[in-house]
C-alpha cells in the first residue's frame, strides 16, 4: 500500500483550479464590499486633488529621471499614490486573513490538500489582481486631472505593479501571521502604513529630503517602499529601474519566505501558539 501512496501526486490542472478559485473568491469579496473599492479609490484621489494641488506652488520639483522636463507636483506624486494603493491593499488583504483566522475561515484554506506555500502564493496573487483593478481605476481618474502619462506607460507599469504588489502583499502576509487579533493588527497598520509612506520618495524626491534632514534621507534609503515607488515611477514612463527592481524583488522573496515559514505547520508560529484560530 505504501508504494501507492508514495506515487500520489496532485494534478497540475488542480493547481490552476486552486489559483482561479482563490482569485475568484477574492474578486467576489471585493465586489461585495463596494465601500472597500470606493475608499481605495477616494484615498489617493484626495491626496491628488487636495494635497498635491495645494502643494503645487510650494514644492518645486526639478528635472530628475525619469522626467525629461519640469512636471506638475500632481504628476510627481502619482507613482507614490499608486504604490500607496498597493500598500493599503496588501495590508487590507492581510487584515482579511486575520479576520478569517478569527472566524475560522482560514482553516478551510489551510486544509486543502495543495501545498500550503502554494495556497499562500495564490492568496497573494489574488490580492495583487484586486490591487491592479484599483490602480488602473485611479490612473483613469487621474488622467482627467492632467496626469497624462505616455500611453506605453500604462502597459509597462504592469510588471512593476506585479512586483511591488508581491512585495507589499508578502509583507502584509508576514504581519498577519504575527498578530492574533484584528484589534492588534489594525493598530499596527497605523504604525506601518504612514511611516512607510511618508519616509519614502512618494511625496518628495530624495535629494530634497537629503537637503533638509540627512537622518530622514537614510531612513528613506532603507525603506523598501521607496524602491517600489521608484520602480513604478520609471515603469510609468516606459523605463526600467534595475536597482529598484532588485531591491523590491529581494524584499519580496524575503517577506514571502518568512511568511511561508510563519504559516508552516511544523515550524510556524501558529503551531506554537495553538493554531490559526488561537485567538478564540
Amino acid at each position, binding site marked *: *500500500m*505504501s508504494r*501507492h*501512496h*508514495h*506515487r*500520489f*501526486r*496532485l*494534478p*497540475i*490542472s*488542480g*493547481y*490552476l*483550479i*486552486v489559483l*482561479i*478559485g*482563490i482569485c*475568484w*473568491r477574492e474578486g*467576489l*469579496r471585493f465586489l*461585495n*464590499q463596494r465601500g472597500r473599492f470606493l475608499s481605495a479609490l477616494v484615498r489617493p484621489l484626495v491626496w491628488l486633488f487636495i494635497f498635491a494641488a495645494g502643494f503645487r506652488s510650494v514644492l518645486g520639483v526639478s528635472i530628475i529621471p525619469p522626467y525629461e522636463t519640469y512636471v506638475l507636483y500632481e504628476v510627481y506624486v502619482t507613482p507614490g499614490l499608486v504604490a500607496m494603493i498597493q500598500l493599503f491593499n496588501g495590508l487590507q488583504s492581510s487584515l482579511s486573513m486575520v479576520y478569517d483566522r478569527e*472566524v*475560522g*475561515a482560514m*482553516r*478551510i*484554506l*489551510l*486544509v*486543502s*490538500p*495543495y*501545498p500550503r506555500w502554494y*495556497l499562500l502564493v495564490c492568496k497573494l496573487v489574488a490580492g495583487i489582481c484586486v490591487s491592479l483593478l484599483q490602480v488602473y481605476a485611479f490612473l483613469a481618474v487621474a488622467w482627467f486631472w492632467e496626469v497624462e502619462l505616455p500611453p506605453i506607460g500604462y502597459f509597462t507599469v504592469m510588471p512593476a505593479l506585479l512586483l511591488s504588489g508581491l512585495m507589499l502583499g508578502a509583507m502584509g502576509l508576514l504581519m498577519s501571521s504575527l498578530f492574533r487579533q484584528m484589534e492588534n493588527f489594525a493598530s499596527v497598520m497605523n504604525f506601518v502604513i504612514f511611516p512607510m509612506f511618508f519616509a519614502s520618495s512618494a511625496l518628495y524626491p530624495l535629494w530634497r529630503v537629503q537637503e533638509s534632514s540627512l537622518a530622514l534621507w537614510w531612513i528613506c534609503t532603507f525603506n523598501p517602499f521607496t524602491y517600489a515607488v521608484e520602480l513604478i515611477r520609471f515603469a510609468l514612463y516606459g523605463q526600467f529601474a534595475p536597482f529598484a527592481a532588485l531591491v523590491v524583488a529581494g524584499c519580496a522573496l524575503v517577506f514571502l519566505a518568512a511568511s511561508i515559514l510563519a504559516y508552516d*505547520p*511544523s515550524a*510556524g508560529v*501558529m*503551531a*506554537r*501558539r*495553538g*493554531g*490559526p*484560530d488561537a485567538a*478564540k
Partner: protein
Amino acid sequence: MTARPRDLPSAPGAGVPALAVSGVSHAFGVRKALDDVSLDVPAGSFTALLGPNGAGKTTLFSLVTRLYDNRSGAIHVLGSDVRRQPAAALSRLGVVFQARTLDLELTVLDNLLYHATLHGIGFRAGRHRALELLAQDGIADRASDKVRNLSGGQMRRVEIVRALMHRPRLLLLDEPTVGLDIASRAALVAQVRALVAQEGIGVLWATHIIEEIGPGDRVVVLHRGRVRAEGSYEELLARSGGEDLSAAFLQLVDDAGEAAA
C-alpha cells in the same frame, strides 16, 4: 475542468482504519494538550470522541487536519501519514470545525464552489456536485441565498455538505451541534448517521453532549489530553458498571481526577 489526483491511493484493504492515531502528544509551551493519545476510527463507523471542554479534542482535530504538525507519534488517514503524505491524507478527509467557517457575505453555492476549487474540482463539476448534495439534504432552494440569511442549523448542514464536496472517506466533526436547538441537533446527528450507513464514511464526532451517542457507536473518552477509555457503547457501560453512559463517563472522569491527584 476537474482535476483528479493522479495515482489516487487504491482503496485501502479491509481492516485499514479511516483514521489511526498512535502515540500522539502535543504541547503549547509548557501546557500539555495531548498526552500519548492513540485511537482508531474504523471505516464505516460512527465514532464519538467524548470529552469535557478543554479535553484536547480541538487540538487533536488540528493535528489530524494538519493545521500544525504532530511532533510525536503518527496520524494516518486511510493509511496515508498526515505529516509525510499530507496531500493524499487531506484529499480524503472532510472536516466541520467547531467555529463556523462559512463566508457570510457569499451565497451558499459560492461557498461550496470555493471549497471545491481548493480541492482541485472545477466550477462546472463543483456546481453539479453542490446542487446534488444540497438537493439530497433538502436545502437546494437556499443555494442562491447569502449564508448570513441562514439559521444556525442550516449553516451547519451547509458545512457538512461542503465537507462532502470532494467525496471524502473520513469525516471529522468538532462539536458541530454547539448552539443548535434540540430539533436541529437531532436532525444533524441523523444526517451524519445516514452518511455512515449509506456511504460507508468513517466519522469522528467530537462532543461533550452524551445524548448524541447511542447504542452501536464506538466511543473514545478523552480527558485532560489522555484517552481514558475506548470501545463500543455497550463495552463502556459494562466496563464501568454504570447504568447509563452519563454515569459511566462521570466515573471515568472522576477516576482520572483521583489518579492525577
